[in-house]
Every structure is written in C-alpha cells, then in structure tokens.
C-alpha cells in the first residue's frame, strides 16, 4: 500500500518510515504565534532557561487586537516587542501588517513540504501551499521554543474529491460550508483532509487558503492541497529554497474518499451556533441582520473584497445594516486601494477597518449587543463569539454578505451577479 501526503512528510521530518497512527518526534520548520505570544512567554519563563533554541524558527505576528484597544493589550504587545528584541527573533511583524495566516503566507514561510505548527487553530491554512501545518496550544509552543521538538501522531486521511465547475454566484466558501455541513464538525477529528480530485487544480491559492483554513472546523489536524502548477506559479519571483513536493500515492490508504460535485453547489450559509449547521442561503432568505463582516483569515483577500465590490458597485448598504470591511493584510489593503475596490466599498457605505482579526473573535471593533445578528465571512459562529451570548452569527461568502447588506436581510447573491 502506498503512502499519504502526511505519512510521507512526517516520515521525512522524523527520518523514519511511518504510517498513520504512529507517533513521531519532529522539529518544525516554523512556529507561529500572535498576540498570545505574551502568554507563551510567561510559560517559557517557567522553564528556567534563558534563550529560545532556534530564534529564526519563530514567526510572531501581532493581529488579534491591533492596534491595542486597552491598556492590558498594549502591555501584552509591549512585552512581546521586548522579548523579540532580547531573543534576537528576526521574523517579527508588528500591528501594521495584518492577520497572521495571511502575512505568514505572503512572507513565504508556508512552502510545499514544510512542517509548521502554530498557536492558533487556523494554522491548518498553510496546507494550501502543500505544507503540513497544525494548531497547537501555548504550553506546547513554549516547550518547542525550548526544545525544538514536539510529538505528533501521524493522522489518517480523508480525501475530498472535487469535480465539476462552480456555477456563477457560487464561491469556494460555499464549497467548504457545504462540505462541513454534510460531514459534520467532528468528521475529521485527529485526521488530515486532502482536497484533491480533478477540480482541485482550478482552485486559486486564495481559494485553497479558504478551504484549508476551514478544515479546522471539521476537527482536522491538517487540511491541504498538494502542490501543483498553481502553487509553483504563486512562488514565481519568490524564494523557493527548501521546497519539497509531497503527493499521496494512488494506492495510499485513505480512511474515506468523499466525492463532491461543484456544479451542484448553491450559495450556502452556516446558521447559529455551530459551523456544521449549514443550509442553502435560499432557505433563510429574508432574515434581517444588523452587522455584516467582510474579511478575516478565511475571506479577507483581494479576490474576496473584489467579489463584495462587484455586488456593491453603485449600490448602498441598507440603512439598518452596518458593514465592516477588514482586509486580511496591509498588502491586500494597498492592492485593493490601487484597484479601486476600497473606493467602491466605502462609497457603498461600508466601514473600512485596519487589517487584522477585527471583530471576528469579539475582542474589539464591532461587538454585538444582545439580540443582534451578524452575517460574516469568518470561519466560526459559536455562541457569544462576537459579543453578547444573546447574539447570533451566520457565516457565508463575501458575495452573500454584500448582497444581503444591500437588502438589509439575508439574500442569495446570484441575482446581483
């Protein structure tokens, strides 16, 4: 029997022949942390050693509450900056860069064949580049800083076989919501999810990031696309050292192979309070909402903003709705300004916020009051996440949020496209 992507990559890193279910000790290529670095430093200090083992492996990106909205956040940021200085950590990105997963990708840390661990559950995102990447907790990050190693269980793999072509008005976000809705929030717990099949090659890097990001919402350890021509062209002109392309063998032992026909997918929406509570947008059309959010590590890239702008061009956001737009990174912000996307969105009445996580995790910038309902392009709709536990969050594509913003109620975007 052949091997899966994950068996090959973790085997290479461990220097062993391994199969799913085995536990390996490995050294990651990069370790990501964000504002939670302040808490990780406190754990690290308990270890009674003075220096991190490999400063060049740490990638620290401030994004969760940027700029600091209160003194306690300011103090966290300050302690992180001081630690970076003391330890001589070369890869530090301050509050003016954007969401960690986007910045990490843009800066080229996510590469085919890489092993990346991060103190954030959406670290699965870098599977978009053919890397093995998984989220871990704070104690583990502190421990890797000190020891440069961690144990990982080699995951079994579910293969999602994508075929067919997306219909107009239907986007990668609808595809991943459809998959999560059908498979359930714990379908891939402890497992790898491979996004493959003949249609995978039609997914842009941005689309791949959307799917790999949300593999976390199926419980996956890692989600990935195998590196191909789309990946390689993304890296044109960028550094391609330490590239290694791993591909599952045809006769690899997949736990399941699940076919999905893209042609039959219609716009999808995740209803409160779980990400797998998914229905076609048509079924909840007409429901009023109060706050729209276009952005996040799931859908805050240039093509997402363009999708929204295409719908909102020469239109106005409904007077009873407020729409927050949060570009995923400063680079995306700049591109969107150059291309007139921001002008379209601002002219429509959207409120443009600085790049970062924004209101997605309910820490600042647009907290929901009791009884309010949000329609968001983010990846999570858990109770209370964006504010009051008496508020609700619906999740959809940028086009669905934009179309709904015009009407002031949930709307299938296809009539605007």
């Amino acid at each position: 029997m052949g091997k899966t992507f994950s068996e090959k990559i973790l085997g290479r890193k461990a220097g062993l022949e391994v199969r799913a279910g085995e536990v390996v000790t490995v050294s990651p290529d990069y370790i990501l942390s964000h504002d939670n670095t302040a808490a990780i430093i406190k754990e690290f200090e308990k270890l009674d050693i003075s220096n991190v083992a490999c400063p060049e492996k740490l990638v620290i990106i401030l994004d969760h509450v940027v700029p600091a909205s209160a003194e306690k956040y300011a103090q966290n940021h300050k302690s992180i900056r001081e630690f970076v200085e003391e330890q001589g950590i070369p890869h530090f990105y301050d509050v003016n860069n954007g969401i960690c997963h986007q910045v990490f990708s843009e800066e080229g840390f996510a590469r085919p064949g890489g092993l990346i661990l991060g103190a954030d559950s959406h670290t699965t995102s870098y599977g978009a580049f053919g890397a093995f990447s998984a989220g871990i907790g704070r104690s583990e990050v502190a421990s890797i800083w000190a020891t440069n190693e961690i144990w990982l269980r080699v995951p079994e793999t579910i293969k999602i076989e994508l075929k067919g072509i997306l219909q107009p008005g239907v986007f990668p976000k609808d595809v991943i919501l459809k998959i999560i809705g059908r498979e359930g929030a714990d379908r891939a717990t402890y497992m790898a999810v491979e996004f493959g099949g003949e249609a995978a090659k039609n997914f842009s890097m941005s689309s791949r990031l959307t799917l790999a990001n949300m593999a976390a919402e199926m419980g996956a350890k890692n989600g990935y696309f195998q590196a191909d021509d789309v990946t390689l062209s993304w890296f044109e002109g960028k550094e391609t050292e330490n590239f290694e392309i791993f591909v599952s063998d045809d006769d690899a032992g997949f736990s399941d192979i699940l076919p999905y026909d893209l042609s039959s997918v219609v716009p999808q929406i995740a209803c409160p309070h779980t990400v797998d509570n998914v229905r076609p947008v048509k079924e909840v059309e007409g429901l009023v909402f109060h706050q729209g959010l276009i952005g996040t590590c799931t859908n805050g890239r240039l093509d997402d903003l363009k999708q929204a702008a295409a719908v909102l061009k020469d239109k106005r956001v409904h007077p009873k709705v407020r729409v927050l737009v949060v570009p995923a990174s400063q680079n995306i912000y700049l591109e969107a300004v150059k291309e007139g996307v921001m002008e379209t969105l601002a002219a429509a009445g959207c409120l443009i916020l600085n790049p970062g996580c924004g209101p997605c995790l309910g820490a600042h910038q647009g907290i929901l009051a009791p009884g309010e309902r949000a329609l968001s392009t983010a990846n999570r709709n858990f109770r209370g996440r964006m504010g009051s536990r008496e508020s609700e969050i619906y999740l959809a594509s940028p086009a669905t949020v934009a179309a709904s913003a015009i009407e002031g109620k949930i709307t299938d975007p296809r009539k605007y496209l």
Partner: protein
Amino acid sequence: MKSSRVFKYGDNVNTDVIYPGKYTYSLLEPEEMARHALEDLDPGFADKVQAGDVIVAGKNFGCGSSREQAASCLKYAGVRAVIAVSFARIFFRNAINQGLPVLSSPEAAEKLEEGDRIEIDFKQGEIRSDRGVFSFPPFPDSVLGILEAGGLIPYTKEKLKKERGTGCRS
C-alpha cells in the same frame, strides 16, 4: 460516598463557550479565569462547581480555537477530569498539557447524569458510579508522565535538566 459530582452537557461544547474570546488576551489570574469557566454555556457553573467535580459531555468536546485557557480555566475551577464521547484534537492536547485528565468513554458519557457521584481510578482505567463501572483506555506512558508532572511546562522543565532537546541553540 463517591467523590466527584457530575456536570452534564451535550455535543460540540466549543472553546468559545468554555472560555470566551474576550478574556483570552487579558492574562487573568487563575481565580479570575475560574470565575469565567463555561460562562457562555452554563452561566451558573462557576458558582456551583466544587473542587473534585467532573464534566461529562458528548462528542467533540473542546472544538474550536486553540486557546489553552479552555483547559486551564476548568482546572482552576476545580474540575478533576472531563469525560466525553470524544474530544477535539487541540483541546485534548491542551488538557493533558495543563495536567487535566480527559477521558474518552462513550458509555460513561451516555449513562452518567447531572448530579451523579462518581469515582475515577486512573490506574485501573475505571469510572465507578451507581449506574455501573465504565472503563476508559489507560493513558500511554508519555501522556501519563506529563499528567503526573502536573502539565507539559513542569514536565519539560525537568526534561531540560537532563537533555537539551534537538538542534539549533548554536
């Protein structure tokens, strides 16, 4: 008299309802974190829970974010262990790394009810209650080592006294 009292919840108890995101970057003290435990699932939990109590839940307990406070706030609230049908991966690791035992026992999770009194025998891998004795797979040595040390940080601290880890540190 069995020592631990059961608090029972359903499937997919996520990290946001265990420990809301608005508190995650505040670096609260343990007692303060304990007061917010399970705040958005069961607002009265922090007042009711006593040292030694256990949580019993359905599948995919701890799904969602990687925030380790979802495990540590339960520990600080006095929770002795979490018993569930299954656990989300990062929560499972975080709980072990915080020294909080997480036991997968679909049978116990189904049969035990709110307010039951139980006793957990970690060595034998047994949960004893008036509704029966339920077994759970005993922890592998590596995991047991971390639990016995009181979590990954004290475990790594001891380990670093003996060896220096892998590579770098030039």
